[in-house]
């Protein structure tokens, strides 16, 4: 479109030239080349993701193919309760370095879900509320300070936030709530929320800013207050963008390693209490990858955890993309 519009203006026919329009052809060639390069880069990105997945999955494959590895870590042992000690009820346990190695995924799932739930419970309302305030209510000057400051929070290395959670937040929270465990799902989840809030804030704020002025003006003209306009008109109109921010934040939260490793206590306890220590999937990979001998059952199980994390993010992104699509369609005229 832009091409055809600009061609006549840039390349007028010059007198005394035999060959027609060399500059047009050169321009077209150049654009084709650029298009090719961009396509190539995009394809490289896709190929890289596919290759990483193939690599991770291949290292986990012995769980299906190698009888020796399967004997030590079958899927039944990973997902069903096992008898751990004689005369005790069966349970779930993550004890890879043991006379009889135990690789139950359940405590790791529970731990990951607890930490992620805490971090999302805090960061979604805070992130969206902050974005709504910055975009709809804050004076312009304040907004110009607020946005870069919150975005700066995203730039703090997670190890620093983890250290803060470990040394400071854990002590505060324990004296405030009387947790038995100083390091627990709440401490780790709040630490994580510090990294997730800026993600949700930034994306949501951009989405809210992109809502046409006409919506706000129409709403105000109909007699709605600023609050009603913000909550019932602007926020729903920006919902797809806000949701994208939440999904991005969720991905960050489920995969974050450093903060969780430092602040969660890393005990593989299967319980619903948020005051217990937890061990999460990514932190387990980080803590144990260094010590395993290549090709053993423990090694394969760690890669299998990688596959699970990959699948989680894939499924979640696909669900969110589908949901956003439906939302957009409904909002642009109600034709399903």
């Amino acid at each position: 479109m832009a091409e055809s519009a600009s061609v006549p203006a840039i390349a007028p026919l010059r007198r005394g030239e035999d060959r027609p329009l060399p500059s047009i052809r050169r321009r077209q060639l150049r654009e084709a080349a650029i298009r090719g390069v961009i396509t190539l880069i995009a394809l490289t990105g896709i190929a890289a993701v596919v290759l990483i997945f193939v690599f991770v999955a291949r290292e986990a494959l012995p769980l299906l193919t190698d009888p020796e590895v399967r004997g030590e870590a079958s899927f039944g042992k990973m997902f069903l309760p096992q008898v751990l000690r004689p005369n005790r009820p069966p349970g779930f346990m993550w004890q890879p370095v043991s006379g009889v190695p135990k690789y139950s995924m359940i405590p790791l799932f529970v731990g990951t879900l607890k930490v992620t739930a805490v971090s999302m419970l805090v960061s979604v309302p805070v992130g969206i509320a902050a974005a709504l305030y910055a975009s709809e209510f804050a004076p312009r000057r304040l907004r110009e300070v607020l946005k870069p400051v919150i975005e700066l929070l995203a730039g703090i290395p997670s190890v620093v936030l983890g250290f803060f959670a470990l040394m400071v937040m854990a002590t505060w929270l324990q004296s405030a709530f009387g947790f038995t465990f100083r390091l627990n799902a709440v401490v780790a989840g709040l630490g994580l929320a510090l990294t997730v809030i800026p993600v949700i804030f930034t994306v949501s704020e951009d989405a809210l800013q992109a809502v046409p002025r006409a919506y706000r003006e129409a709403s105000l003209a109909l007699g709605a207050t600023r609050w009603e306009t913000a909550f019932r008109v602007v926020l729903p109109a920006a919902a797809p963008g806000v949701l994208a921010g939440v999904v991005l934040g969720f991905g960050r939260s489920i995969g974050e390693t450093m903060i969780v490793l430092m602040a969660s206590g890393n005990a593989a306890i299967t319980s619903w209490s948020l005051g217990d220590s937890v061990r999460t999937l990514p932190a387990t990979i980080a803590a144990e990858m260094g010590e395993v001998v290549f090709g053993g059952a423990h090694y394969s199980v760690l890669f299998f955890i990688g596959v699970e994390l990959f699948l989680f993010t894939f499924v979640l992104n696909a669900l969110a993309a589908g949901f956003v699509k439906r939302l957009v369609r409904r909002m642009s005229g109600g034709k399903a």
Partner: protein
Amino acid sequence: MKRMLLALAAVVAVVPALASAAVTVKGSDTMVILAQRWAEDYMNKNPGKKVQVTGGGSGTGIAALINGTTDIANASRSMKSDEKGKVRERYSVLPTEIPVAQDGVALYVNEANPVSQLTIDQLHQIYVGDVTNWKQVGGPDQRIVLYSRENSSGTYVFFKEHVLKGDDYAPAAQTLPGTAAVVNAVAKEKGGIGYGGAAYAKGVKEVKVVGADGQAYAPSAENVKSGKYPLARPLFMYTRAKPAGEVKAFIDYCLSPEGQQLVTKVGYFPIK
């Protein structure tokens, strides 16, 4: 421009030369401070020689030895027979074990905790999760919060073998990276208990452990050396084959009187 290229070429040429001359030491976090001191002192005394030290845990060091990515593996436990077998499988030679220092695994509790001595049996029950309150072992009515090391740690394995007698740690045991983190956690948690090298105890109380003769011993130099302290252990260096060349020179230094003096300075106990 040309000069820059020349400089770049020089760097490119020198870097691998330096790297190949360095002796790499990897493994036990318990030994990492000691190994670093040794390396510094050794390099000061022998200019031009290089020793690179990294921690990561005994398991990490031994895995690196098996995978061929380190010259020396530090370990605060002896190598398991299947690990030795893997070395033989790949390099057709058994690894060499060199005891270089001694350590007592100390048990830390919070300074406010009145419990001053425990038996190995009590420790066993505490760490497998059968005993969950301090009042069951003569302390105040307070829940016991267990701290452990992550399973790449040699101390973890040593403790599992000598205290847990091979049983698994209770799922509620929190694993922390490094003894310093365990000490810090116990210092801040009233009901906490943790274990680690005797060189680390700052801001926590070391509990006496009842030995074979029925008396309680603190992890002091003489008790560890005499073997009266029940959780004394040797610290090892492992090499793939018999040490030779640069590697041998460094290990000989560690075992020399100067090297052993540093052991005492760091807070462990000399082997000789």
